């Protein structure tokens, strides 16, 4: 489903192009169809870069990113929209449009993709009931709780029935109970065959999921366990050991 081959990416720190920081250093990994993978690692480890590559926001300097056997690193800019309709993404800050209702926020994703109004009227209620927000269709995001907002975002990400759902710190702004609601929803979506990539700092979530855990540090994969636990970043581990 997803295969990274020797992917490297560096950014220039300053305007001086020679001073570069390596965000990803020859990363190779394979994620199968329907897998639920947690991506852990400290801030600046390369998690975000990895996710930005998967949603084709950025291109690798080297290596290839194969999604369903297609290298997305070589996608032309006019092909990107069609690729993005095949993957769902949710973020910590939800990225909902405040001036649109829940229904309109979800329908918007279909409107920009040239889906007919009839089909929109058919698909939006289905996805709303999947995330359990059928009664909030006419509410504005400001009238929702954090968990509800994230469920709207997940509904919007799933509206194209993508085969991959990428969640970048989806519970970062949520309290513990709501966090479990969202994780449960992601698991449910995963059970229907969607590949889920969950980038998170939340140790409790990762430990309880008992799923594959990939840990990234300094732009490299430092561990990859089939049934993993949260990996404590090496600096913190070293500090704890010396204490």
């Amino acid at each position: 489903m997803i295969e990274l081959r020797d992917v490297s990416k560096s950014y220039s720190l300053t305007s001086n192009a020679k001073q570069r920081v390596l965000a990803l250093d020859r990363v190779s990994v394979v994620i199968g169809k329907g897998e639920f993978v947690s991506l852990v690692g400290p801030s600046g480890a390369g998690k975000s870069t990895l996710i930005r590559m998967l949603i084709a926001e950025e291109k690798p300097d080297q290596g290839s990113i194969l999604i369903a056997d297609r290298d997305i690193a070589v996608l032309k800019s006019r092909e990107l929209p069609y690729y993005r309709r095949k993957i769902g993404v949710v973020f910590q800050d939800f990225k909902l449009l405040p001036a649109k209702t829940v229904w309109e926020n979800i329908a918007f994703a279909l409107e920009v993709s040239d889906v007919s109004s009839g089909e929109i009227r058919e698909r939006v209620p289905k996805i709303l009931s999947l995330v359990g927000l059928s009664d909030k269709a006419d509410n504005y995001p400001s009238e929702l709780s954090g968990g509800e907002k994230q469920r709207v975002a997940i509904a919007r990400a799933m509206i194209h029935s993508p085969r991959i759902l990428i969640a970048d710190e989806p519970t970062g702004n949520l309290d513990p109970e709501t966090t479990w609601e969202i994780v449960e929803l992601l698991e449910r979506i995963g059970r229907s065959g969607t590949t889920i990539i969950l980038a998170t700092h939340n140790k409790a979530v990762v430990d309880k999921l008992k799923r594959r855990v990939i840990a990234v540090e300094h732009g490299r994969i430092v561990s990859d366990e089939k049934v993993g636990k949260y990996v404590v970043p090496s600096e913190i581990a070293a500090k704890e050991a010396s204490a």
Partner: protein
Amino acid sequence: MSLRSLGRVIRLGLTNFWRNWWLSIASVLVMAVTLFIIGVFAIQTVVILKTTEGIQDKLDLSVYFNDDVADQSIQDIRTSVANRPDVKSVEFVSKEKAYEIFQQRPTSEKIKSLITPENNPLPRSLVIKAEDPSQLSVIAKTFESGQFEQMVRRISYQDNQNVVDTLVQTESTVRRNGIVLALIFILLSFLLVYNTTRIVILSRSDEIEIMRLVGATEAFVRWPFIVEAGLYGVLGGLLAYGALFLFLRYDLASAVPLLSIANFLAPDMQAFFIRFFAPILIVITMAGMLIASIMSSFAVRKFVRL
């Protein structure tokens, strides 16, 4: 883009327009002023060109012959002149015809009564029209020398040339001033429309990001901004049209000296405007739409990236 998406893009553009109405109004106004100035000078230029054309058509060269020249000689000259490639037409004016023309002149009866068909000192003449009126002097030259010196009493053409020269002069002044003023305002409107589009894009960067994430094509993201600018142009065009109407109807040309280089043309401009009121309306709004959309597309290209 499908018809369905086109409809959605237009709707997004219209929503944008109302959301930033204060910016939109500023853009509409500057487009209106620009189109108004272009309109005034375009109409002025067209009217002057038409007037010049009409006058040039009336320009001719009259060669008056001494009374002792035989009619047959004049007819021979007429034939040979008519064969010249630069001559459009030659007309013979007999003494009788000259008398008729003289009687129709707005001269006092006292002077008119001095000339009678019996006592007619008016000379016979050839009235020559040139293919290119500015070449009349060249044709005239041939009658000033050689065999003609003894036959020709007078050659007249210069008086009219002054009128043409004045008009041609006015036209080039109008055109020059028009182009300079129009360029200044096109530049001004470009800066304003460009900047408005930029601000609108920046204020909607969240929405653009979301559109991108959910798979909107580049065209779908970009075109609403261009539609919005097109609306500035259309509304600006309508305003400019109304202003043009008032300007010509109430002869406000004299109130704005910079615009009224050819003050004496005001009635002709008014007539032209009334005669072509529908085409002018269409041209001015379409031009506004095109100019503003092109201006905004520069900002869109620069600030909306996928």
